[in-house]
């Protein structure tokens, strides 16, 4: 099949232009890109400001709303504990389902202590040794979590050997660099 001739090509800008040039009324159509460049420049500056080279090292659960804080302390990659009003999840695995018995006492939760101890022991075996950086946990709690539940999780962490407990929060403006 032969290539279509110019006459068979649908009416395009190029075709029209050719026709116009034959008539001697050639007008060069130029697109004014300046305003678009202005807009793109603003967009690029804004996006560069919110650019994160470190990437997201924490996965936020849909089941909870984190509280907001002015704290500016950078998050580190640690063991994640998610505390909602329904369950306590360690490293993506639900460990304790929250009911009245869990909210009724103030001591460490044995099942959670056991799971956290196992995790610490596993880390120790895998690396041969364990340093202070590995004895940290990040706790993601829902805004409506009750203090007793948070305190039980924190005391469970302390009993299992996780000496440092970090509360994960959403940073709001007004914080001081640490």
């Amino acid at each position: 099949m032969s290539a279509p001739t110019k006459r068979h090509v649908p009416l395009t800008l190029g075709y029209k232009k050719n026709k116009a040039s034959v008539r001697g009324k050639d007008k060069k159509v130029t697109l004014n890109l300046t305003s678009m460049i202005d807009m793109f420049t603003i967009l690029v500056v804004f996006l560069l400001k919110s650019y994160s080279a470190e990437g997201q090292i924490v996965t936020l659960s849909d089941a909870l709303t984190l509280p907001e804080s002015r704290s500016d302390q950078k998050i580190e990659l640690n063991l994640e504990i998610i505390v909602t009003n329904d369950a306590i999840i360690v490293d993506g695995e639900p460990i304790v389902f929250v009911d009245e018995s869990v909210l009724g006492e103030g001591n460490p939760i044995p099942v959670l202590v056991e799971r956290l101890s196992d995790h610490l022991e596993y880390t120790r075996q895998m690396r041969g040794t364990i340093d202070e950086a590995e004895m940290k946990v990040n706790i993601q709690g829902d805004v409506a979590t009750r203090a007793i539940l948070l305190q039980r999780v924190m005391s469970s962490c302390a009993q299992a050997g996780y000496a440092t407990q970090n509360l994960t929060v959403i940073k709001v403006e007004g914080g001081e660099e640490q």
Partner: protein
Amino acid sequence: MAKAATGRSHRIRHSPELDLLPIMNLFCVIIPFLLLSASFLEISIIEMSPTEGISAGAGTTSLAQSEEQQLQPKIILTNEEMFLGTVFGTRSISRVFLENRDGEMVNSYDYEVLSDALGDFRGELDAAFPTIPVHKITILTVDDVRYDNIVMTIDVCAIHGFDQPGLQVAAYSVLQRQILAGAGGVSP
């Protein structure tokens, strides 16, 4: 009539046109890349310091405790009131009021009054014990205080240099004993 010769050349001046297409191409590549790697939600952490259990003899300090531990303030959150317990005594800060947060009416406290009180305490502390740096603070709450109220309290404390918060939860009766025991305090 012939045009008079001016002696000037009549070259047509073309205004130089900048070819913006390569810049547009560059932007078209950069913008999707930046959109993908932009983080619009910034996550940070609050490092909690370990706390000790509440002693039966509330308000008394043992000799074994460090000077900083003896001076560290306590913020007591109950379902009715917020208190500030310091070495100078325990006093009420604000009553609980209801606040609408995301369409839900929840208990809240007056954090501005707390900020003023902590600022005053920091001033008194620096004047009375200038050599002892106090950074620790204990948040002492009843069972059902909301997590966001705890975080807001920690935020206010951090503004005044109390940036090593600890959390303790106790029954209301225990907190009552703490408040009564700390009502005396010492003069600054």
